[in-house]
């Protein structure tokens, strides 16, 4: 019997494309393996001719089909934005660790900008689960707030924060957390810019609340052998992308300070 090749891209047809903001599109497709994705896991997306890049996987709140949510920041993501219903992409995964809701009763989701993408599913599924979610949804301005209507319809309490005050409180996510973090959360689940994540680690260390964070680094293989996604001795693709507080403590000094570029050279985190 021939076993299927797990790490060969499966070609899927795009079923739906939706604008989530001026710079962010959802791309919805059918795929059996991705349909059982756990929140926080990612896929390697092949855009033929262009590249293969890592993308968080989630389920479309509307159709419940697998989807990726893409911000166009470069060549491959721009190419993804050009695709339409009926076009093909290749996909392998789901890969990596996931957010673990375990026995948590109260979860605080903390999202900065596109950081909501890997957290979306936890919020959308909360009505069928044991836990209850609050969500801090931060962005520069109202235009960059993603999935606001979907999240409003979910069984969660939403706290939007924008830097210019165009939606919700004015300020930074971390200000809101420092001011009003309640101690009855079992776990914080977080994704966003690394300086924000570092501040959240600082906060979590002073409490008994658990912390799980999704991180990003440049990925080439996605299956834990090339080393390009290395962060303090962890592989973001295989040991992550979701890390717990113990792991985050071990990588604290590197977070927000250093990363590797495509050649593998260690560079300042803020380069380019």
């Amino acid at each position, binding site marked *: 019997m021939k076993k299927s090749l797990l790490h060969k891209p499966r070609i899927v047809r795009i079923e739906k494309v939706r604008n989530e903001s001026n710079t962010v599109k959802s791309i919805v497709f059918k795929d059996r393996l991705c349909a059982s994705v756990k929140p926080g896991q990612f896929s390697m997306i092949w855009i033929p001719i262009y590249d293969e890049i890592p993308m968080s996987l989630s389920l479309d709140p509307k159709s419940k089909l697998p989807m990726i949510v893409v911000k166009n920041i470069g060549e491959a993501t721009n190419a993804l934005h050009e695709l339409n219903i009926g076009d093909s992409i290749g996909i392998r995964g789901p890969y990596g660790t996931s957010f673990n809701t375990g026995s948590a009763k109260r979860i605080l989701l903390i999202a900065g900008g596109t950081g909501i993408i890997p957290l979306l599913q936890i919020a959308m599924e909360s009505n069928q689960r044991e836990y209850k979610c609050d969500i801090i949804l931060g962005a520069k301005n109202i235009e960059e707030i993603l999935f606001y209507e979907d999240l409003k319809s979910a069984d969660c309490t939403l706290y939007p924060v924008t830097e210019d005050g165009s939606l919700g409180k004015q300020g930074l996510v971390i200000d809101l957390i420092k001011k009003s973090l309640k101690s009855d959360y079992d776990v914080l689940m977080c994704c966003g810019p690394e300086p924000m994540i570092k501040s959240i680690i600082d906060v979590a260390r002073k409490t008994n609340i658990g912390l799980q964070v999704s991180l990003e680094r440049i990925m080439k293989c996605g299956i834990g*052998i090339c080393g*390009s996604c290395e962060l303090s001795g962890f*592989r973001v693709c295989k040991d992550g992308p979701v890390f717990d507080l113990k792991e985050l403590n071990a990588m604290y000094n590197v977070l927000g300070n250093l990363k590797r570029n495509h050649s593998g050279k260690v560079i300042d985190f803020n380069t380019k």
Partner: protein
Amino acid sequence: MRRKEDIEQMEPDLSIEILGLKLKNPLILASGILGISGSLLKRMAEVGAGAVTTKSTGPSSREGFKGPVVVEVEDGLLNSLGLPNPGVSEMVKELDEAKKGKVPVIFSIYGFDINEYCKAAKIASDAGVDAIELNISCPHVKEVSVEIGQDPKLVSEIVKSVKETVDKPVIVKLSPNVSDIVSIAKVVEESGADAVTAINTVKAMSIDIDIKKPVLSNRIGGLSGPAIKPIGLRCVYEIFEKVKIPIIGCGGVSRWSDVIEYMLAGASAVQIGTALVNEDTAIFEKMKKGIKKYMLDKNIGEISSIVGLAHTK
């Protein structure tokens, strides 16, 4: 001669000596597998590798190819990363961390010409590596290695020059993509190399029938994993018959019995790469356990005693 009863009571000895280095076991992490990072090399030592090899680096940095750079095929993995590397001068900065793993660190280098090999070897040697492996066989960067590895005269000049430049043990990693690997191995030995590694990946490709295009962005890549084990094994066996310097077996070592097979064929140690995809970091301890059990079953006291036993004289 040790008595049988003594052997049965003894813990099987997995340690080996190669290139004047003492290895706790014959399992070496292959080049290009996690070796871009010192802390990952350290981690592989901590999970049981007997020695570790760095990612091949050359005098200047390379970003590598666009994706896909890896794709699974039947019983194997194809890769064409395009030798992404930060350059030797950056790579040696990873050594301090790598050495905390307390196993020998083999430093893999490549180059476009003799000068580049020597330059890279000098920087690595000055940084205090335990041994240098020359990647003359990487099949997927045009003009780099496949041409060098296929040209016995050039290979010989490179090995001689590198040996003149540095005092470290020099291993030459051979390509299977040649018509006669044994003659290349002989040239390498005559030029003064201290050991050979056989084999690097086998040139291959994969085409997607829906997209109707090669999957790898570079179209052609190198095949590794179980599919190439019989090829690697044959190469080691043939080289052992004609060459006296130690051979490091490589290619599709996925379970403990593969290690035994390679050693019986004539390998003094093995390198492990693709097996990490399925077994991840547990692979080294798992293999060590299997090898120890085999040694107990067969009354083998020292693993080095089986090297080349498959050659009946």
